[in-house]
C-alpha cells in the first residue's frame, strides 16, 4: 500500500451525495446506500464513522460526492464512457479535500456480472480509500489498484483486502474487532434501507474450473454457468466472468456446466461437452444437429469427458476420462481402434484433469484444481517444476492465494449434482 501523507484528524466524518447519475438505472437510494457501504468498508477497519448530512451554513460535509461530466472545475476532467472513471481528493483543510467525483457518462451498475457497466460500489470503495489518505497500490489483490477490477461483491459483507486494511490502519489505527455485518448494524444508516440483488459470482482465483479451452488464441476458463477469457497478450478480457448462455447462443438453459471444450482445428468449430453429450458451435452460434452423443467420438454410452484437446503433432483429438483416454481421427471422422489407453503416456500428468489445452506456442497444458502442468511442444514429459500455480500465471491472481483446504472430488465417478442459482428477486 502507499500513503499520501495526509489523513483526517477526526474519527467522525460527514458525507453527502450532491448530484446523482443522470441516466443510470440505479435509483438515488441505491446510490446512497452503495456510498454508505463503501465508506463503512473502511470505517469498520479503523473505528471511523460516517454520517450522511446535508450541507448547511457553517457546516459542509467533508466528503461531497458528485457525478460530473467532462470538465467540472477541477484538474481531472472526465473523458466519457471508459477511460477514467472517478477520482477523489486526499484529506486536508482545502474545501475540496475528501470530495469524490464519478464520471456521469459511465454506465453505473451494481451487481451486474455480464460486463454491461461499471460497478459503482467497487469504484466507490477505491475512491474513498483516496478520500481517507491512501494512494494507489500495486498489490494485485488491492482495491487501491488503479485499474477497474470488476464488482466487489455483496456490499453488506464486503471486507477490504489485506493490503488495504494494513494501509488504512497505518493511518488511523485499528478499530474495534467487530465483524462487518455486526458493525453495519451499529452504524447510522442512510435514511432508506437498501435493497440489493444477490448474485453469486464464482472466484476465478480458487481454480477448479470445469473446462479450459484455447479458442482462436484466447483461453476460456469455464466454471458453472460462467466463463472468463484470457487474451493472447495475457490480459483477462474482464475480471468479471461472462454468462455462459449470453455468449454461446443456442446452448440450452439446462446446460449449466461445461465439462470440457476445444476448438476443432479442421474447421474451427467449437465443441462444448456436458454430460454424455456435446454441442457444436460455429463462432458463437449453435449448429443444427446438436447435441450429439460422445459415443460418436468412440466413448462408451453414458460416458462423460473430463478433458479434450487436439494435439497439433498429429492433428488427432484426445478425450480424457479419469485415468484413460480415447483418440479420435478428425481426418476420417472416426475413433481410432485400441482405446482407451492409460493416461500415463503423459508422464507426470494428473489423472482426471479439469481440462487440457494447447497454448499459442504449442505447449500442452494439463489443468487440475489450482495447478497446471506444462509439456513442451511434442513432449509427453511434464516440464521440470510442474505443477505450477494457475492463479498468478494465468488469471491475474495473487501468488499467495491459498489453496482451498480440500480438493474437489475427482470428476469420476460422477454423481448427480444439484445446481442452485439465486436470481435477482432472491427467490
Amino acid at each position, binding site marked *: 500500500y502507499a500513503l499520501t501523507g495526509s489523513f483526517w484528524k477526526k474519527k467522525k466524518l460527514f458525507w453527502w451525495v450532491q448530484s446523482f447519475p443522470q441516466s443510470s438505472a440505479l435509483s438515488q437510494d441505491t446510490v446512497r446506500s452503495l456510498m454508505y457501504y463503501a465508506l463503512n468498508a473502511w470505517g469498520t477497519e479503523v473505528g471511523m464513522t460516517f454520517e450522511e448530512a446535508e450541507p448547511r451554513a457553517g457546516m459542509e460535509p467533508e466528503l461531497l460526492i458528485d457525478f460530473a461530466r467532462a470538465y467540472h472545475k477541477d484538474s481531472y476532467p472526465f473523458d466519457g464512457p471508459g477511460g477514467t472513471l472517478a477520482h477523489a481528493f486526499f484529506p486536508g483543510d482545502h474545501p475540496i479535500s475528501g470530495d469524490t467525483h464519478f464520471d456521469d457518462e459511465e454506465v453505473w451498475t451494481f451487481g451486474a456480472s455480464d460486463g454491461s457497466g461499471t460497478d459503482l460500489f467497487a469504484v466507490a470503495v477505491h475512491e474513498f480509500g483516496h478520500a481517507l489518505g491512501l494512494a494507489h497500490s500495486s498489490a494485485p489483490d488491492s482495491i487501491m489498484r488503479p485499474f477497474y477490477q470488476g464488482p466487489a461483491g455483496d456490499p453488506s459483507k464486503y471486507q477490504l483486502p489485506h493490503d488495504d486494511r494494513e494501509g488504512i490502519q497505518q493511518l488511523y489505527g485499528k478499530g474495534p474487532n467487530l465483524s462487518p455485518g455486526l458493525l453495519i448494524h451499529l452504524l447510522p444508516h442512510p435514511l432508506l434501507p437498501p435493497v440489493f440483488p444477490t448474485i453469486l459470482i464464482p472466484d476465478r482465483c480458487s481454480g477448479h474450473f470445469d473446462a479450459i479451452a484455447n479458442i482462436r488464441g484466447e483461453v476460456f476458463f469455464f466454471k458453472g454457468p460462467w466463463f472468463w477469457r484470457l487474451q493472447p*497478450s495475457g490480459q483477462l478480457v474482464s475480471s468479471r466472468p461472462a454468462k455462459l448462455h449470453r455468449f454461446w447462443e443456442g446452448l440450452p438453459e439446462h446446460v449449466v456446466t461445461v465439462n470440457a471444450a476445444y476448438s476443432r482445428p479442421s474447421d474451427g468449430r467449437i465443441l462444448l461437452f456436458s454430460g454424455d453429450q456435446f454441442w457444436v458451435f460455429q463462432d458463437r452460434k449453435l449448429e443444427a444437429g446438436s447435441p450429439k452423443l460422445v459415443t460418436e467420438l468412440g466413448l462408451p454410452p453414458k460416458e462423460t469427458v473430463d478433458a479434450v484437446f487436439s494435439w497439433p503433432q498429429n492433428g488427432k483429438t484426445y478425450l480424457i476420462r479419469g485415468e484413460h483416454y480415447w483418440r479420435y481421427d478428425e481426418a476420417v471422422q472416426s475413433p481410432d481402434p485400441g482405446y482407451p489407453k492409460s493416461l500415463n503416456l503423459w508422464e507426470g500428468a494428473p489423472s482426471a484433469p479439469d481440462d487440457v489445452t494447447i497454448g499459442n506456442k504449442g505447449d500442452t497444458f494439463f489443468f487440475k484444481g489450482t495447478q497446471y502442468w506444462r509439456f513442451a511442444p511434442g513432449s509427453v514429459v511434464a516440464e521440470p517444476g510442474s505443477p505450477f500455480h494457475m492463479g498468478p500465471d494465468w488469471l491475474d491472481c495473487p501468488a499467495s492465494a491459498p489453496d482451498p483446504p480440500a480438493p474437489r472430488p475427482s470428476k469420476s465417478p460422477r454423481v448427480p449434482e444439484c445446481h442452485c442459482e439465486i436470481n435477482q428477486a432472491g427467490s
Partner: protein
Amino acid sequence: ALEPSAQDVSLSVDWLTRYGYLPPPHPAQAQLQSPEQLRDAIKIMQRFAGLKETGLMDEATLSTMKKPRCSLPDVLGVAGLVRRRR
C-alpha cells in the same frame, strides 16, 4: 513483435505523464523525452501493473493503458508519497 504505431507511442507518453511516470513537460521549453527515460518510465509502469518488465510498449502494456481506471496518478510527487515496505 510489431513496432507500436506513432499514435500508440504518443498516447502512451501522454498516459505515462498523466499518471506520474514521466515528469510533466516544462512550461517554458519544449522537452524531448530520451529513449532511456521513456524505457525506465515504461518499466516502472509495468512493475506497478504487474506486467513483465520489458521497457517496451508491447501489447500487454498498451492493453493495460487502455483499461478503465481512476483518474489519480499512480506515482505522486516524492514529497507527498510515503511508501512502506512490509
